[in-house]
């Protein structure tokens, strides 16, 4: 039971990263590689700030702001310097490695014995594993509400329009460059926030912790979409969070079944490929249709 609770807690914390990537990957419709750099950067910033005596709340906010800054650089490189977005992201991701080392002063910084967001009186009074569930729930609810509110403002609508159809948005007088810069900044701020939360939950930050983050974030988006189908924008944001939890539960199942850990990366990729491929295959082979007909014939 506690394993399931822990998986849900982790799913909620990682959902922040999924929601962050959703802004660029789905709304703006471009792949942002910066996330593999901003995730450890958020972790490094928060952990170092805590180690220097800042309160965990301030440290977490600092992580968000640093992430925004890194995203801003990617956005500027992409819109102003006209560097292709994939490359701009990779450039910032690569640079973040050196920056993380400078921030922490060493490759690995521990939080043991230091206060974290999870040390609060409220979190400590909860049964085991519910601390991360509660923290994840609080943060993801706040993030979702703020984003939903924002997406309904004029600015938010302009942001969505930019992703939907750039030419049309421009003809309506929307500064699409600014929209993209804003989107990448906020997205990376959220991913750094996620890094800060995960680091506090794990008890350390490590300069290598960004490897593979984009797969995890994509997993929550895609699982959410495939499982729940057509949804409104607000529901989609919620579906990302549920997708992140489902991903964790499936991984837990795989681990519990006793699969060799060597195969874990392969298994996660296969899982993702299945989730991404099923809708297309279903369409192609009319699976639903065939199934229904098969049942009918059986009657």
């Amino acid at each position, binding site marked *: *039971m*506690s*394993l*399931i*609770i*822990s*998986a*849900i807690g*982790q799913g909620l914390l*990682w959902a922040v990263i999924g929601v962050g990537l959703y802004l660029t990957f789905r709304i703006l419709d471009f792949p942002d590689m910066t996330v593999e750099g901003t995730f450890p950067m958020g972790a490094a910033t928060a952990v170092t700030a805590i180690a220097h005596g800042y309160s965990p709340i301030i440290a977490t906010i600092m992580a968000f702001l640093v992430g925004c800054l890194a995203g801003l650089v990617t956005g500027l490189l992409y819109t102003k310097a006209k560097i292709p977005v994939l490359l701009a992201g990779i450039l910032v991701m690569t640079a973040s*490695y*050196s920056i993380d*080392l400078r921030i922490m002063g*060493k*490759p*690995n*910084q*521990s*939080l*043991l*014995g230091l206060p974290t967001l999870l040390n609060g009186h409220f979190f400590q009074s909860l*049964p*085991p*594993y*519910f601390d991360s*569930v509660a923290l994840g729930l609080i943060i993801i609810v706040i993030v979702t509400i703020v984003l939903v509110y924002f997406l309904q403002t004029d600015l938010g609508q302009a942001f969505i329009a930019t992703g939907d159809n750039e030419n049309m948005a421009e003809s309506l007088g929307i500064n699409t460059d600014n929209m993209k810069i804003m989107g990448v900044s906020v997205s990376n701020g959220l991913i750094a926030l996620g890094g800060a939360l*995960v680091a506090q*939950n*794990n*008890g*350390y930050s*490590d*300069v*290598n*912790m960004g*490897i*593979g983050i984009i797969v*995890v974030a994509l997993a929550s988006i895609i699982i959410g979409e495939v*499982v*729940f*189908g057509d*949804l409104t924008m607000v*529901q989609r944001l*919620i*579906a990302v969070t*549920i997708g992140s*939890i489902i991903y*964790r539960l499936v*991984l*837990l199942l795989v*681990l519990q079944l006793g699969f060799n*850990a*060597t195969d*874990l*990366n392969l298994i996660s990729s296969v899982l993702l490929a299945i989730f991404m491929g099923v809708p297309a295959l279903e369409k192609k082979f009319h699976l639903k249709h065939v199934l229904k007909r098969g049942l009918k014939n059986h009657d």
Partner: protein
Amino acid sequence: MKRLYSVIIVLFLILAFGYYKEKQPVKISRDHIPQIGILQLTEHPALDAIHHGIIQGLKESGFQPGKNIKIDFQNAENDQSNLKTMSTKFANENVDLSIGIATPSAQVLANTVKNRPLVLGAITDPKSAGLVNSNQKPGRNTTGVSDLPPMKQQLDLIKQIMPNMKTLGVIYTSSDDSATSQYKKFTEICKQEGIKVKGYSIANTNDLNQVATQMVQNVDAVYVPNDNTVASAIQTLVAVANKRNVPIFPTASNVVKNGGIATYGLNQFKLGVETGKVTAKIIHGENASEMPIQTLKHGDLALNLNQARKLGIHIPQPLIQKAERQGVIYK
């Protein structure tokens, strides 16, 4: 849409049920055989050797896995989120003791499996990793074996072979916590001995060629800490250094074999065996927080005479005799 809301409701029901269950006090029966959780960061020859050593050390202390001890071995394959899931699994299984191989695994374990002894397998500097209060008196129910190489002994060896050496270059990977802290410690030791050290760091193996080319122009010899990244590209370093006849003094014997000159090398398997013995002591009831972190003071001498001949370096006869008696010579 309906599906979304029903899944959310199901999740909350699970949470509510879990909340109710976790509130109940846990009953632990004490008559079971000791259970140990081993968490390894990733698959790697050195880490694997430690893992096998631990099993061997436990066997030597009378614990047969599967018979009078149960071992749950998990390998996170370098994925930081796996570390947490696997540690939670240990906590959930109520393991009597957990062993972390490599720093991040130990850090997650310390943060997840609380109130149970934690044994550190091959963590270079537990104090700076924040795992213990001090390496002499760890506290926090944590102890273990450090893979800090016998640097003083290694430096003496370098001085013996290179009596006229003025500047020593050290090359290490900046993202490797263990290698970085070895570089810092080694610099201190050299300072006491009056030897000038120049540090060169790389981000990954692709940097090695260029950084090494620059390094060999400025130094008389090269010291390579226990660094997985440099070790995996040692051929590149050897090729660059050979062009300028600069000898390489690594910390691991297998690197000597691949083009280093000499070292007092740490044996990872032996480290694992020691870790296994420490673990056995704790199962027998010793207090982990009172046991100092162990280091191996002496390594095994390894010489590469072929390489020395190539670079025109004379290795003193007593050393060769010593290596012949107890150590390895590559000819």
